[in-house]
């Protein structure tokens, strides 16, 4: 056994997915309960700026004297919350479009596919930058741009799943037995699709966090003083040489959450693998 295969086996044994679930739950629990009202995330205290860690400020303070830990935890709520909102909106818009395009076919399908091709011709980041640049900076516009970029993926995936499933005899038999298109969609096709959507969504989760953070970092997303992680990175840029820890904290937070989300997505993808699903 090669070294690589051996280490992969050991990683599988270690149940990294379980660790990442626990990590996400613990982070969420801390973010939503711990230190709930101890500090105000936007309250400045210029006399105590760039302070070292103390009991009152476990991670020190930033360039305006705000408590870093409080901002970091609020940032978790914001970053994760925003990406969940964007994800939900993309799924809610994408799935019905995909179902319609797959089942109806004809001009509905063709029109939809051309729009999708148009979106897919550019990298996600570029479209998001252009859109939020056009609409003006701000977290609302950024989320709108991200949803507009992401829904296409869901619609395309649902469409292709529908197209392969509709060919199968059980759909024909359901039609023969007089079920309406809507019932077939809901009872015989949707359960197939939900698994795939779940996998794609969990893989996208990390990507969307990165997208929000990176666009906030270049000033197109959340604006100061919002404690969004990307915006925090941006704010601490001028103090990088004297106080590098100001950039390390939000950076590490992003890495941890994105990594956990990706590992979880990979696990779900293996778990929902269609080829393994229908074996006697």
């Amino acid at each position, binding site marked *: 056994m090669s070294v690589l295969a051996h280490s992969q086996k050991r990683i599988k044994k270690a149940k990294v997915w379980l660790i990442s679930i626990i990590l996400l739950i613990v982070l969420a629990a801390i973010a939503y309960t711990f230190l709930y009202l101890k500090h105000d995330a936007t309250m400045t205290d210029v006399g105590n700026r760039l302070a070292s860690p103390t009991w009152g400020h476990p991670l020190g303070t930033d360039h305006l004297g705000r408590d870093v830990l409080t901002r970091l935890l609020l940032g978790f709520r914001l970053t994760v919350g925003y990406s969940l909102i964007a994800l939900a909106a993309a799924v809610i818009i994408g799935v019905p479009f995909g179902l319609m395009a797959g089942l109806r076919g004809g001009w509905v399908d063709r029109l939809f596919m051309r729009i999708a091709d148009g979106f897919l011709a550019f990298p996600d980041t570029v479209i998001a930058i252009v859109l939020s640049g056009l609409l003006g900076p701000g977290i609302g516009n950024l989320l709108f741009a991200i949803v507009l970029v992401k829904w296409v993926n869901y619609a395309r995936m649902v469409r292709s799943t529908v197209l392969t499933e509709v060919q199968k005899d059980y759909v024909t038999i359901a039609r*023969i037995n007089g079920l309406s298109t809507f019932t077939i969609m809901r009872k015989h096709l949707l359960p197939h699709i939900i698994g795939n959507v779940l996998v794609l969504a969990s893989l996208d989760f990390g990507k969307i966090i990165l997208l929000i953070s990176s666009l906030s970092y270049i000033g197109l997303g959340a604006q100061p003083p919002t404690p969004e992680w990307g915006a925090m990175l941006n704010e601490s840029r001028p103090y990088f040489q004297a106080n590098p820890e100001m950039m390390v904290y939000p950076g590490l937070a992003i890495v941890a959450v994105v990594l956990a989300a990706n590992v979880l997505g990979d696990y779900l993808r293996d778990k929902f693998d269609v080829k393994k699903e229908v074996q006697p």
Partner: protein
Amino acid sequence: MILAIEDLTVSHGEKKIVDKVSLTIDKGEWFALVGQSGSGKTMLSQAIGQLLGTNLRASGRIMYQGDNVLEYPKEKMNQLRGKAISYIFQDYHGSFTPFLTIQQHMEEYLQTHGVHQKTQRKEMMKEAMESVGLEASFAKRYSFQLSGGQLQRASIALALLLEPDILIADEATTALDSVSAHRILSLLQDLQQKKGCAILFITHDWRHVVRYSDKIAVMKDGKIIETGTKQKLVHQPEHAYTKQLIQAAPTLPMRIREVSKS
């Protein structure tokens, strides 16, 4: 006469897949449609239930109870499906939605066709399972937990659940081994005699045709080239292609017949 097809043409663009086919199926008869792959048998059967894809166009008339089924709107067609016309397919594994049990399928179809009482549904399902020789407990299983023969029985139970007038069996036994195939077919014959439904039996296997059918139509390149009773076609075939088909079929040894009876 229960179903009359008059000048049915199914075309894909300019190409005619089924070309001006006419045939009549009488009540309770076993009508065999024979032909090689690509002769248009399946297209013909799908046109009856309005199951053709959007790229195919059917013209002509399919008369059922004095109405042209081809002109039925979608909702009226849905009422007819299952209740009047029912199908069994070759691919028995694909005939069931993988994440629903046999019982869930049956429940759904019964509910769609207006059987709202739970006790009545239960009774009908039990009866349907027993009529095809399956234990009632099998209904609680998923399709991948049954063997091929059991699945084909279950799909017959599902197809006959609402006692349709016509059952269309499209290559229903092609994927089974020959002993199981004969068991399934003799089961179908029993059920046909009990319930009196007509069967449109589509196959390319001449042995099955000779054994079970009442009437035979031979199809080639989208056209029906010869049609008539079994006696006539088997003993006095007129068309050269029919003769060829008969000669190409292997003869059936006696002992397999005995096994299939047991």
